[in-house]
Structure formats: structure tokens, C-alpha cells
């Protein structure tokens, strides 16, 4: 049969399209971005009129998807792990409301922090919300899970989480498709109070959610994604979650694996299968890519009974992504290193592109701030975070989407005046606007630099919701028009930029400075170039 060559992300996208998806809602975030991009680029998705435009942030995405589910259609929302923090309020409560049309929440975690500020494990969130979690071990399973997840969601009237990690999200393999399903017709929820979380209704819904626990566990027990491989050597039983199953099997390709193995890819944990494994085996090894979620559950607080090995007892490292070699070391298998890396190999960190507008903005800012001394620039999430590295050394914080403006306000409240925020256009509309309102409400003297490049750059140049609206949003929030300063950041403009920054740093109120120049990576995007011209930017 013909196979498609798909990334794990793309396999999920294709699975959802084939399952009768009506809309995907997402904000770009590595390693989840390619799910939505695949649907945006899919001819079939266009023909089926599947919604795929980017949302302003993960919370608006989650809520919009929930609204589509309310109206009876199958909806999906995709994000990186830290995006789920932004969407958490909607996510947890979507389990209380339950769903009408199938609702699938895809979260791509980033153990080892390849492109992230932490390596939190979304299975903790899934457990917190008390919903089913699917964790594919390969691309075909990612496709199959996305294809079947909507049905599972509709059967139990609950959202379903698909959790994957960077390695699978960004790895390609052959995938076989299933028959294309029709989209749902619109329909209202049978109970008009289902989505009304007034305390009286919410208590009822919560009791219902609790009552689904045995059912969801039963589904995990019967899940085609969880399977046992028996082994005669019961001195050790192995639980391999998601992609770690691949690393285990890689090590036993040419060797006998005599221990029983539970391949675990659907949660809540299938208790009866786990109990059987624990009863049969002297000790248990848990392999999981992320936090020791299952290991901790099995170990419990009393640490009595069967010894449990994994990330908590040092059998595996406590942090970072697993790989075949780390798993080999848990079995004391030899690792044959090839050749040593010569000392002359230097690290080559990522850097802002030659000719990038952020560079010119930082050069000017560093000069303008000389008279005040260091330690007062609060930055945000985007390419401009690379301003933390030499030769710029221009920023002092990067915490979460939008935190630049609010942290600058807090520091100013504490007497660090002037404090400066540096944020991109897309991050500003994601989570910067409300913080700016806080500063305007109190006329806090902060200087906000919105380095506007008309795109969401770091994730590969997706649309920015700020395009064409930036000044009107800022004015609408209440920043005085004379303290909204726009210019083109180039080396020729350096003196002018420094002068403007100096003026606004002195102003004892809210200033917004907008260095504005198109991201050079997007100059080949003809429709964006055209739109920028049309808007007169």
C-alpha cells in the first residue's frame, strides 16, 4: 500500500483530517507548529473547508476549539507544552463541561529544551484534567491515534489529549492512511446546561467526570496502543511509555529480551495490567520521556513493595530526553563510541540572522541605556531572545510569553526606573496587551519596545495577528499618541533611533517604541510583501 512520508506532527494532522476534522486552532510553537501548517497546506483540507488560521494565543485557540465542539463539529487544538500553561484554564474546564463534537488537544513536549524554557510533561496536565491521554510511539500510531481520538472523545463526551515529544514530532516515517470520514453535522448539546459552569451545574458535571474514571481506565486496559510482551525472566518487568519503546527495542534488535514488557501509550494507567506485571516481577523499570510520572505513581510515597527503577533512583538521568544509549546504560549494555570529538570543534550557537532588524534595535538600545547602567531590560519569547548572547548582551530576562511588559512594570514599581520591555509584534498580541493595560492604568513609567517584523519569526514566519493593527491596539489601550514612536531600524538610522529612545526613557509615563522592518527570512513570501506594501508599512 502507498505510504506517505510524514513527520509525527504531520501524521497527527493527516489523521485528524481523515477523521472528519472541521477546524484546527493553534498558535505556533516548536515542536507543535507543523501540525497546523500541514493542515493549512493540505489541498484536501481546503476542499473540505477545514478552518486552519492561526489563533492569537493558545487560550483563544483552546476556547475556539471548544466552541466548535459545542456546535457539534470535530475540533482540534495544538500547542507546545508551555502553550498549555496559557490555555490551562480553558483546558481544565473543558473536562468539566465535557464536549459535544469530538475535541482533541495535541500537546508537543520538548524534553531537553531544544527550543523551550522548560521541559514540563503534559501528561501531568492530562491527569490533572482527568481525561484520556494518548502517547504515540511512532508516526503510524500518531496517525491512528489522531484518527480514532475524536470517536473516543465523543463516546465519553470528554476532550482527549495526544501527547508527543520533539523527537517524534520532528521525525519522518512512512504512514498508511485510513478511509476518509465525513465531518459531523452541526448540532447543539442535548443538555442546554452542559456548558454552563455555574456552581450548581459544575458540581453536577464534576461528579459526572469523576464517574467516568472506571470507564476511561477500562478503555486503557483494552487499548490497542497498550500491549504486553511476555518474557520468562521475571527478575525485571519493563514499562516503556510512548517513544521510549523504540529505544528499548533498538537495544534488543540483536539480543534476546527475556523480561516482560508493557508498552504503555494510553492513560489513565490500566491498573489491572500494571498490577499483573508488578505481581509477576521482582523489580520494575519505568522508561518515560519527560517527568517520572508513571514511576512516581508506581513508587508511591511509602516506597514499600516492589522496587521501582527509573529517573527517580538514578537508573536513568532525572532530566533530559532519553535515547537508545541512555536506555542501554539502564541495562548495563555496552555503548561502542565511534571516534572522539576533536577539541578544535567549537560550539555554534544559534544567532540572529545577518541584516535582522532586531540587531539594529539592540545596538541603539544599548547606547541609549549607557547612562543608566545595566540590568533593566526585560525581554520576551522570540528571535530577539538571542539578544541575550554576545556581542549584544542586551537583555536580562526571558520567562514566558508577555512577561517582558509586566516584569518591567513590577521592576519600575520597585524603583528600577527606567525599566525597558522588549517584545515582538506577535508575542505582543499573544500576551502583551493586557500587561500594557496594567501599566497604562497606573501611568507606570516604562518604555516598551515592540520590535515589529510582521511575523512570528522564530517558528518559521507564520502570520502575525498584529499586522496592520499595532498602533490602533496600542492607542486603544490608552498609550498617548505622542509616545508611540515608529521608525525603521537600520544602521544608517542609528543616531535617530538612539535619540528617540533617550527621549522616551526620560518620559515618566508609558512609551511604546516600534522599530519596524520586515523579517528578512520572509522577504520571499510574496503575499506578505504585497500585504505590507498595501498597508503602507
Amino acid at each position, binding site marked *: 500500500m502507498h*505510504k506517505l*512520508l510524514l513527520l509525527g506532527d504531520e501524521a497527527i494532522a493527516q489523521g485528524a483530517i481523515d477523521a472528519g476534522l472541521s477546524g484546527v486552532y493553534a498558535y505556533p510553537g*516548536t*515542536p507543535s*507548529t*507543523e501540525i497546523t501548517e500541514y493542515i493549512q497546506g493540505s489541498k484536501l483540507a481546503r476542499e473540505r473547508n477545514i478552518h486552519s488560521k492561526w489563533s492569537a494565543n493558545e487560550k483563544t485557540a483552546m476556547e475556539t476549539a471548544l466552541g466548535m465542539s459545542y456546535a457539534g463539529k470535530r475540533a482540534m487544538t495544538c500547542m507546545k507544552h508551555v502553550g498549555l500553561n496559557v490555555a490551562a484554564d480553558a483546558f481544565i474546564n473543558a473536562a468539566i463541561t465535557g464536549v459535544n463534537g469530538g475535541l482533541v488537544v495535541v500537546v508537543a513536549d520538548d524534553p531537553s529544551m*531544544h*527550543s523551550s524554557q522548560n521541559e514540563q510533561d503534559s501528561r501531568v496536565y492530562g491527569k490533572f484534567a482527568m481525561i484520556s491521554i494518548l502517547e504515540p510511539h511512532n508516526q503510524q500510531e500518531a496517525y491512528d491515534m489522531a484518527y480514532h481520538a475524536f470517536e473516543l472523545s465523543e463516546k465519553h463526551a470528554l476532550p482527549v489529549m495526544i501527547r508527543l515529544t520533539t*523527537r*517524534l514530532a*520532528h*521525525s*519522518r*516515517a*512512512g504512514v498508511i492512511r485510513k478511509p476518509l470520514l465525513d465531518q459531523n453535522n452541526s448540532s447543539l448539546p442535548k443538555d442546554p446546561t452542559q456548558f454552563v459552569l455555574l456552581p450548581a451545574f459544575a458540581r453536577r458535571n464534576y461528579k459526572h467526570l469523576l464517574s467516568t474514571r472506571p470507564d476511561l481506565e477500562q478503555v486503557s486496559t483494552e487499548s490497542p496502543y497498550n500491549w504486553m510482551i511476555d518474557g520468562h525472566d521475571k527478575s525485571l518487568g519493563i514499562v516503556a511509555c510512548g*517513544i521510549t519503546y*523504540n*529505544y528499548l*527495542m*533498538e*537495544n534488543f*534488535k540483536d539480543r534476546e529480551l527475556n523480561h516482560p514488557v508493557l508498552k504503555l501509550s494510553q492513560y489513565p494507567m490500566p491498573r489491572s495490567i500494571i498490577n499483573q506485571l508488578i505481581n509477576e516481577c521482582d523489580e520494575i523499570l519505568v522508561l518515560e520521556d519527560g517527568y517520572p510520572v508513571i514511576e512516581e505513581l508506581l513508587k508511591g510515597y511509602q516506597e514499600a513493595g516492589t522496587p521501582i527503577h527509573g529517573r527517580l533512583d538514578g537508573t536513568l538521568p532525572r532530566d533530559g530526553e532519553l*535515547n*537508545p*544509549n541512555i536506555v*542501554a546504560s539502564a541495562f548495563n549494555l555496552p*555503548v*561502542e*563510541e*565511534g*571516534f*572522539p*570529538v*576533536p577539541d*578544535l*570543534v*567549537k*560550539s*555554534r*550557537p*544559534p*544567532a*540572529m*540572522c545577518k541584516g535582522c532588524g532586531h540587531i539594529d534595535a539592540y545596538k541603539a538600545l544599548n547606547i541609549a541605556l549607557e547612562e543608566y547602567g545595566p540590568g533593566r531590560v526585560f525581554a520576551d519569547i522570540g*528571535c530577539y531572545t*538571542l539578544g541575550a548572547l554576545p556581542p549584544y548582551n542586551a537583555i536580562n530576562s526571558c520567562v514566558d510569553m508577555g512577561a517582558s511588559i509586566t516584569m518591567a512594570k513590577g521592576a519600575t514599581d520597585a524603583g528600577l526606573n527606567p525599566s525597558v520591555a522588549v517584545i515582538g509584534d506577535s508575542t505582543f498580541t499573544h500576551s502583551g496587551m493586557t500587561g500594557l493595560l496594567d501599566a497604562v492604568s497606573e501611568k507606570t513609567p516604562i518604555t516598551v519596545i515592540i520590535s515589529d517584523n510582521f511575523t512570528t519569526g*522564530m*517558528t*518559521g514566519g507564520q502570520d502575525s495577528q498584529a499586522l496592520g493593527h499595532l498602533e490602533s491596539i496600542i492607542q486603544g489601550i490608552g498609550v498617548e499618541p505622542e509616545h508611540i514612536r515608529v521608525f525603521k531600524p537600520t544602521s544608517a538610522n542609528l543616531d535617530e533611533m538612539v535619540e528617540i529612545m533617550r527621549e522616551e526613557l526620560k518620559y515618566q509615563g508609558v512609551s511604546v517604541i516600534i522599530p519596524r522592518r520586515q523579517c528578512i527570512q520572509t522577504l520571499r513570501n510574496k503575499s506578505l510583501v504585497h500585504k505590507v506594501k498595501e498597508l503602507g508599512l
Partner: protein
Amino acid sequence: MKSDIVLAGVGGQGILSIAATLGMAAVENHLYLKQAEVHGMSQRGGDVQSHLRLSSEPVASDLIPKGKADIILSVEPMESLRYLPFLSRKGWLVTNITPFENIPEYPDMEKVMAEIEKLPHHIAIDADQIASEVGNRRASNIVMLGAASPFIDIPYDALEEGIRKIFSRKGEGVVEVNLKALRAGRQAAEESLAHMN
């Protein structure tokens, strides 16, 4: 049959096009394939790598274990050395010798070449020069694919077919240049091999 290949380079040098071409050729030849690549932050001028695994049997891990790679295929000389712990003792290092210098302390090229030449099996060619000669310096990545092709158990015409498919939407001219680049890279590797013998 199995070929485990570490592709190495700097963000923007086109290692993903090499991976896509090989992937296409592998799927057409009914081989199993896994190919792990790097997206996101590192793509901005940082070091990038991709693990490409081709096999007549199903592939378990998306990542190649240390010491198991049959080939390191690098489009940049210093980057070719970064992943040496993955190279099998019997494996081949196939690298471009034109450096991409975007860091302040890029090592002395003579020393880089000396390290490459220490390896028992290596092919080092000037892919940028060869690509310029066939008509487009930007095809140096496909020159390198050609140079590695004698060590990969996929028919040469399947690679040509892969190039036609991957580059077709960029126009016939781009396809032709890349086909020439593939051929020239293979010739350069064959000449190096003949010279060794």
C-alpha cells in the same frame, strides 16, 4: 540492507533537502525509513543535524545509537567532526571542505583537515567549488549527496528520481542543476576512492 546516516551542517545549508531526496528514494524502493530532524531555534545559523535510517527491516529508534552510523554526511568541515562518536569504526565520513564561518573562533582549516584525514575512511571534497562549476553554488548539498551515494545501498537512478520529485516545483532548471550536482559529487567521490586504491 541498512544505512544509518548522520547528516550534519549549519542551519540554512540544505541538509533537509538531502534528507528529503533520500527519503523519497527510499520510500519508492519500499525501504523502511526514519528521519529525525531539527526545527526551531537552532535553525538560525546554529549547528544542525538529522539522523536518517534506511533499512529493509522496520526501524525501531528515530535516533541512531553511538558507534552505529554507517556514514556521516556533512556539508561543512568542522560540523563533520561534531558527531564522530556516532560513526561506526567501519563507517565513512563524507564531507565538504568549504568552511561556513559565522563564529568568531573558527578553527584553523589545516587543523580541521588534519582531523578529517586521521579517520580511516573519509571522502573530503570541495562541494561549493563543484556546485559552482555545474551552475549553482547552492547545489553544494546535492553534490555531497552524490559523494555519499557510493556508500548508500539505493540505486543511483532512484536518487535522480528523488531529486526530480523534490525539486520539481522549483522548475526544470533547478532540477537539471541538482541532477548535474549529484553526478559531479558521485564522480568526485569515485575519483577519491580510485586514488586511495
